[in-house]
């Protein structure tokens, strides 16, 4: 019997009827079950279980499980027919199905040893799923699924103006719980120990902290709605709204400046890395965001910059001139630019996706060359170049010692690049880039030299990649071929795409998300690329313009939604065929 026979066109054939579309509910339930089982088997649930979200109440792993069941119920409720009973049952049934999938996992896991090929199908996982009851508790996920799904369905009935603040409240608990450690340290350092201990346990939130967060966020949203703050903000003229932004921007800048002084050495290293990627993201932003050239060989120029600094400054074996760091940086930029020109010339006639593949090839060539026997006598082969001096030489007690100085240097350079990008955007060159991106043929016919203009974009991107490499060499103090890998290119491209092409705040946010967060969750590092992939897919699916897109990109990606009047008003497209 096929699925269609089993559920004879429920709800479709008689439009007047409000019959449940069970097929949809079953589909959602099964999908939810697959996701939940997947989360268990790849180890996210058991590994995250070690990390408390609210100390002593709920762990991150449990939250992931309950969350997946809840989302299943909510999605099913969304697809259900109207009417409170329909919605709640749809949620409950979908949740039940997802729960059954988990139960099956428990039962199968107890009968057959899955650990041979699935490392995470451990007794610990089963005990987590059944509250320690083993086989006897196999019914627990089913009941839990139905309950959670039913609640989610019922929650879907709550009007949006209450539902949305509540969802935000839960999300805030999740975010604060995740970053508890990060927030606690500076608060303790800043003499807010009392408050820190009240809100945060050593790991995760305290119960009081969670309740307070929830109440504050929900209350804040409701008050905001009551007062109609958003409406009044939207009604303000553009200039005044901008003025309201000023204090926020000032506050953010203040935080950026003092941040490393409040954080410990580990976090300082993390934000130094984030700042370095912001710098490189802004560089690629010129190539990709403005000129639309997808360059996946960014790491090639990064390598040129890093090795240039290494060769010019190292006091060890392969160092040539023992120059100070700052004297080497201009050379790093120039060499990277020259490489950009040499590599760019033959390939810039290639269009679109093919260019990405060609640049990908260059990245790999440089990586292999750096580690090759051929250049071993110059670049040190796999041993690399060590003893690269710090940019600012201070005693180790100074606050600028270690990664903090790299952070400040990277921030200053990033600001410089942002300034350059901003100035270019409004110039003749920036307009030419945008035109090339929109229609190469027309741009050329208008008088724009394609090769020259593209090459300039490519070379500027290369220059900033070289600068990134130079700063990296200064941060690490050494450079090895293993640092020159494809993931540098992919990271930078992903930052620009996720953050929002062509947008400077987007790049900063992208770097925080894709570089900063994974570094903070080192214990979950096995899942780094899983989350990376999910984030990229979700981004492309739901928000292809990125988190904070530039005006131009937003326009491009939403043309379909607000198709211009051009097509509508051309109501007479067939010209009269004149007769002579």
């Amino acid at each position, binding site marked *: 019997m096929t699925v269609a026979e089993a559920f004879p066109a429920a709800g479709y054939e008689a439009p007047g009827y409000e019959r449940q579309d069970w097929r949809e509910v079953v589909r959602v339930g099964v999908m939810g079950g697959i996701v939940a089982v997947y989360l268990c088997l790849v180890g996210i649930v058991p590994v995250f279980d070690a990390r408390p979200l609210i100390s002593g109440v709920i762990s991150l792993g449990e939250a992931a499980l309950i969350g997946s069941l809840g989302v299943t119920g909510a999605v099913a409720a969304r697809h259900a027919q109207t009417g409170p009973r329909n919605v709640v049952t749809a949620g409950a049934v979908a949740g039940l199905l997802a729960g059954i999938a988990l139960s099956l996992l428990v039962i199968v896991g107890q009968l057959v040893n899955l650990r041979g090929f699935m490392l995470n199908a451990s007794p610990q996982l089963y005990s987590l799923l059944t509250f320690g009851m083993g086989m006897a508790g196999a019914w627990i996920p089913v009941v839990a699924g139905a309950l959670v799904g039913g609640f989610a369905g019922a929650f879907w009935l709550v009007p949006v103006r209450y539902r949305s603040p509540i969802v935000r409240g839960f999300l805030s608990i999740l975010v604060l719980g995740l970053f508890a450690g990060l927030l606690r340290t500076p608060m303790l350092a800043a003499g807010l120990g009392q408050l820190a201990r009240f809100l945060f346990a050593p790991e995760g939130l305290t119960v009081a902290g969670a309740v307070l967060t929830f109440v504050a966020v929900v209350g804040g949203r409701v008050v905001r709605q009551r007062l109609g703050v958003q409406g009044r903000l939207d009604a303000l003229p553009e200039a005044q709204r901008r003025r309201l932004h000023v204090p926020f921007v000032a506050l953010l800048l203040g935080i950026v400046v003092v941040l490393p002084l409040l954080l410990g050495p580990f976090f300082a290293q993390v934000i130094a890395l984030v700042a370095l990627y912001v710098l490189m993201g802004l560089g690629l932003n010129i190539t990709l965001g403005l000129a639309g050239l997808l360059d996946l060989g960014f790491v090639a120029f990064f390598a040129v910059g890093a090795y240039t600094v290494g060769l010019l400054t190292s006091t060890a074996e392969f160092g040539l001139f023992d120059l100070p760091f700052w004297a080497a940086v201009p050379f790093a930029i120039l060499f990277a630019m020259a490489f950009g020109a040499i590599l760019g010339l033959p390939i810039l006639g290639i269009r679109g996706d093919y260019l990405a593949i060609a640049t990908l090839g260059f990245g790999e060539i440089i990586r292999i060359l750096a580690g090759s026997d051929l250049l071993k006598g110059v670049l040190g082969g796999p041993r690399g170049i060590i003893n690269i001096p710090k940019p600012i030489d201070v005693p180790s007690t100074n606050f600028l010692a270690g990664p903090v100085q790299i952070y400040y240097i990277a921030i200053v350079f990033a600001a410089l690049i942002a300034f350059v990008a901003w100035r270019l955007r409004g110039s003749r060159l920036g*307009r030419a880039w*945008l035109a090339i991106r929109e229609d190469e043929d027309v741009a050329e016919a*208008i008088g*724009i030299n394609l090769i020259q203009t593209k090459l300039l974009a490519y070379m500027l991107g290369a220059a900033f990649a070289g600068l990134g490499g130079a700063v990296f060499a200064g941060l690490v103090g050494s450079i090895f071929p293993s640092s020159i890998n494809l993931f540098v290119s992919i990271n930078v491209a992903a930052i620009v795409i996720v953050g929002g092409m062509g947008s400077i705040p987007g790049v900063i946010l992208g770097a925080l998300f894709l570089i900063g967060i994974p570094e903070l969750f080192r214990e979950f590092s096995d899942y780094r690329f899983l989350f990376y992939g999910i984030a990229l897919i979700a981004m492309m699916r739901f928000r292809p313009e990125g988190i904070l897109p530039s005006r131009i990109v937003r326009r491009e990606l939403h043309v379909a939604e607000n198709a211009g009047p051009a097509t509508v008003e051309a109501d007479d497209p067939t010209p009269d065929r004149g007769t*002579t």
Partner: protein
Amino acid sequence: MTFLAARGVVKRFGGLVAVNGLDFELAQGSIVSVIGPNGAGKTTFFNCIAGFYEINGGEILLDDVPIHHLRRDQIAHLGISRTYQNIRLFTNMTAMENILVGQHHHLTSTWIGAVLGTRAVREDEDRAHAEARRLLEFVGMTGKGDLLAGKLPYGDQRRLEVARALANKPRLLLLDEPTAGMNPAETHRMTEFIRSLRDELGITILLIEHEMRVVMGISERITVLDYGEKIAEGTPAEIQTNPRVIEAYLGRGGAADLGTTPAEA
């Protein structure tokens, strides 16, 4: 000296000969139309002049200098601008930005100058913006500079495309069906506008057009293409009575039905 000349131009796409040994001359300051049935090779010929296609034989000369081997941007620098049959504006840029891009090679600022914000660059930009505003006014689009090109009404898009072409300060303007899809009132305005381009700015105009009222109204000479070959050339009056032209448009039978009566213009 001939302003623009094509000598024995051949353009093949695989086995299809789109333009076959075409000879063509254009006098400076004239308005000339190229007409012909669908698929006659009119747009192909335009694309050969503007450097979109490499020709397979013959030569194209501007002021007796061969231009057919040049890149599109080099041809644009020589003062040849064009519009497109299906409008090809930079739809996600504003009307103003479209015209500013059109001025590209008349501006002098370098990227380093732009980054430093030198006085020369600022003055250059000011001039470019003033020129763009002037062109917007010239095409009757004052005040629409900040709108996205893709969101403009159809007629405005056609006009903006002309304004963008004019930003290049062309000597020769190639217009590919400038009135396609326009209503009679808009068509009339566009016709007057094209005439003013020649009368006021002295731009030589070569246009492809299907709307016979437009062709007969403003052309000084007409060239008729069919199957990639020139079948007739002359003044509007001559073309209207040419039996080969009538045959090409209506087929042999149609021509016989009409007999020798001149077709309605």
